[in-house]
């Protein structure tokens, strides 16, 4: 390991400490967590997993299994186990990220902070840390996708193909977007990565087909329809009845809109969850600071990635790909695939996997930018330097925003717990389960008494970070 690599890992450790500090302030949520934990605690693990093969709209047996295993391991110490597991996931993600971008030289180490800021500062990442469910499956898929890339870009070994198959099964049966793991292996193979063999990649394709047959042909689980959720369209969100009224008989334009919105969201951070929020606010004369730096950061970052692809076009057309090319190509494939699987419903968090690969591609592109400019005289290097400072500053603000978002989420979750009785009035079925009342008391204690609210922040600077 070079000193630059060591320095990069040391820096990543500091970032992890910062994220973990804010992450460990976040109690387990009421909505999407407490009810899930009550459900996961019922019966035995095998009964839980078996029952998840007979649900409507969702097929996540291994996702539920993870919640149950952590529940059993915690023996009632829910906060410690679930929140620390979340922090461990972040560490794992950072290690995998560094393994992908391989910082071995000055230039490659210098762009690590940018890459990590993009990783945690992307709006697609926010949900993976602000929400827990209580094990965040979208973060798990991102980790699996990074692990898949690490497997695919390594030297050819039989065990890698076997691990690839296991990884896909694990990710796909944890949450639907786990299917994106197969995209990594196929895309990597297309650009010459042979860590997973041709048979291994063929196995990925077969497993995906098998999953689709199981889900739609055998179990008839289907997928969520328009009637399930509100969804962004244009300048606002439409509730299910409005969606059905507008697109009920012809949903294809809505699906196309969602795919296009998702792609744009990854590349320029607008629209968000299908809503053109920044554009709407700009037209109203109500643009907020964070909207500006979000879009500027993404636009500059995407410009660097486009520049990289343009510079490498001849090698790509001649099918000569190095590791950096492979990472950028996997990002492109992932952006397309992630946007496509968001056809029915686009949400920032669902795009977390593409967002993670955006960070990797940006790291590669920024390193290439620095290396390509290294021959310039100091006077001529001023413009590129200013560009890098602007790029880096906007991403730095987004990274700070990610921490502030966790702080705000921590306040909201504690408010949820203070008002949990009102929530239970609307969801009375949760309390009817055995152990639910005791678990509620325990989780509320964790959120309110054992880990009380940290001091409230004040100041105009907070308006900069209110995404």
């Amino acid at each position: 390991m070079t000193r630059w690599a060591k320095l990069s890992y040391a820096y990543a450790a500091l970032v992890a400490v910062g994220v973990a500090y804010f992450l460990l302030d976040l109690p387990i949520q009421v909505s999407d967590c407490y009810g899930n934990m009550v459900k996961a605690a019922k019966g035995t693990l095998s009964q839980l997993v078996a029952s998840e093969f007979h649900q409507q709209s969702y097929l996540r047996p291994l996702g539920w299994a993870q919640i149950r295993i952590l529940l059993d391991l915690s023996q009632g110490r829910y906060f410690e186990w679930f929140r620390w597991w979340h922090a461990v996931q972040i560490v794992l993600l950072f290690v995998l990220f560094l393994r992908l971008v391989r910082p071995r030289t000055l230039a490659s180490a210098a762009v690590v902070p940018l890459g990590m800021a993009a990783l945690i500062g992307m709006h697609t990442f926010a949900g993976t840390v602000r929400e827990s469910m209580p094990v965040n499956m979208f973060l798990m898929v991102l980790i699996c996708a990074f692990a898949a890339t690490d497997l695919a870009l390594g030297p050819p070994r039989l065990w890698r193909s076997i691990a690839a198959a296991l990884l896909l099964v694990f990710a796909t049966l944890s949450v639907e977007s786990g299917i994106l793991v197969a995209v990594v292996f196929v895309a990597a193979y297309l650009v010459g990565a042979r860590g997973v063999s041709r048979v291994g990649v063929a196995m990925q394709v077969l497993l995906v087909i098998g999953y689709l047959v199981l889900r739609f042909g055998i179990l008839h689980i289907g997928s969520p329809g328009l009637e399930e959720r509100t969804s962004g369209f244009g300048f606002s969100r439409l509730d299910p009845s409005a969606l059905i009224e507008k697109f009920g008989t012809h949903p294809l334009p809505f699906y196309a809109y969602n795919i296009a919105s998702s792609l744009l969201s990854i590349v320029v951070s607008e629209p968000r969850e299908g809503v053109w929020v920044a554009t709407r606010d700009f037209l109203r004369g109500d643009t907020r600071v964070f909207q500006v730096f979000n879009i500027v950061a993404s636009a500059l970052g995407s410009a660097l990635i486009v520049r990289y692809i343009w510079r490498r076009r001849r090698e790509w057309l001649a099918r000569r790909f190095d590791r950096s090319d492979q990472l950028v190509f996997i990002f492109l494939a992932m952006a397309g695939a992630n946007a496509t699987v968001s056809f029915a419903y686009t949400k920032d968090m669902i795009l977390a996997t593409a967002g993670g690969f955006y960070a990797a591609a940006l790291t590669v592109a920024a390193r290439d930018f620095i290396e390509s400019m290294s021959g310039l005289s100091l006077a001529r290097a001023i413009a590129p330097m200013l560009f890098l400072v602007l790029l880096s500053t906007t991403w730095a603000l987004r990274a700070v925003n990610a921490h502030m978002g966790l702080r705000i989420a921590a306040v909201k979750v504690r408010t949820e717990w203070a008002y949990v009785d009102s929530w239970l009035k609307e969801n009375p079925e949760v309390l009817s389960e055995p152990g639910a009342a005791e678990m509620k008391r325990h989780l509320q204690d964790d959120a309110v008494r054992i880990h009380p609210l940290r001091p409230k922040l004040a100041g105009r600077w907070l308006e900069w970070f209110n995404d």
Partner: protein
Amino acid sequence: MTDTRTTTLLAVSVATPIVLATVAVLAFSGLEIAGRTPSAIGPPRNIAEAVGMGAPSEVLRLLDFGDDPNRVLSVRREIISSTITRVTALEAAIWSHHREMMELLDRRGAIVDGDTRQHLICLTKDVGDADILAYLSGGREVECEQGRALAMVEERSRKSEQER
């Protein structure tokens, strides 16, 4: 040599802003662990302040520690207003403009009798919050002398300021 120097400068340009931001986050965390949260208005000093700051989890915590929501307490000027500095937690809940906050206190038995409810209803009318008024009155009409309840709280705050 030019290559190395230019590369170094470009490397510094791209890394510095983000590294500084990371240092700022770590410094913030460190100071908070040391009990000196930067840019914070500080934790609520009592249950009335917690209610006024709209911090229901703190309210719940303080209730569990035995704080009395009917006790008149001092609140800092920036919590409600410069003229309202001596209130009960129940009164502060009206200025929080959160019906859920009033419900939370009520559910915990804070509205102990009819007189307390009557006072809160009249104060809510004076302050002006239709949602909390509907909750407290249950939709029935309650007679109040306009401005009297608010004047009482203001007078209490004024006296306290003078005594200081």
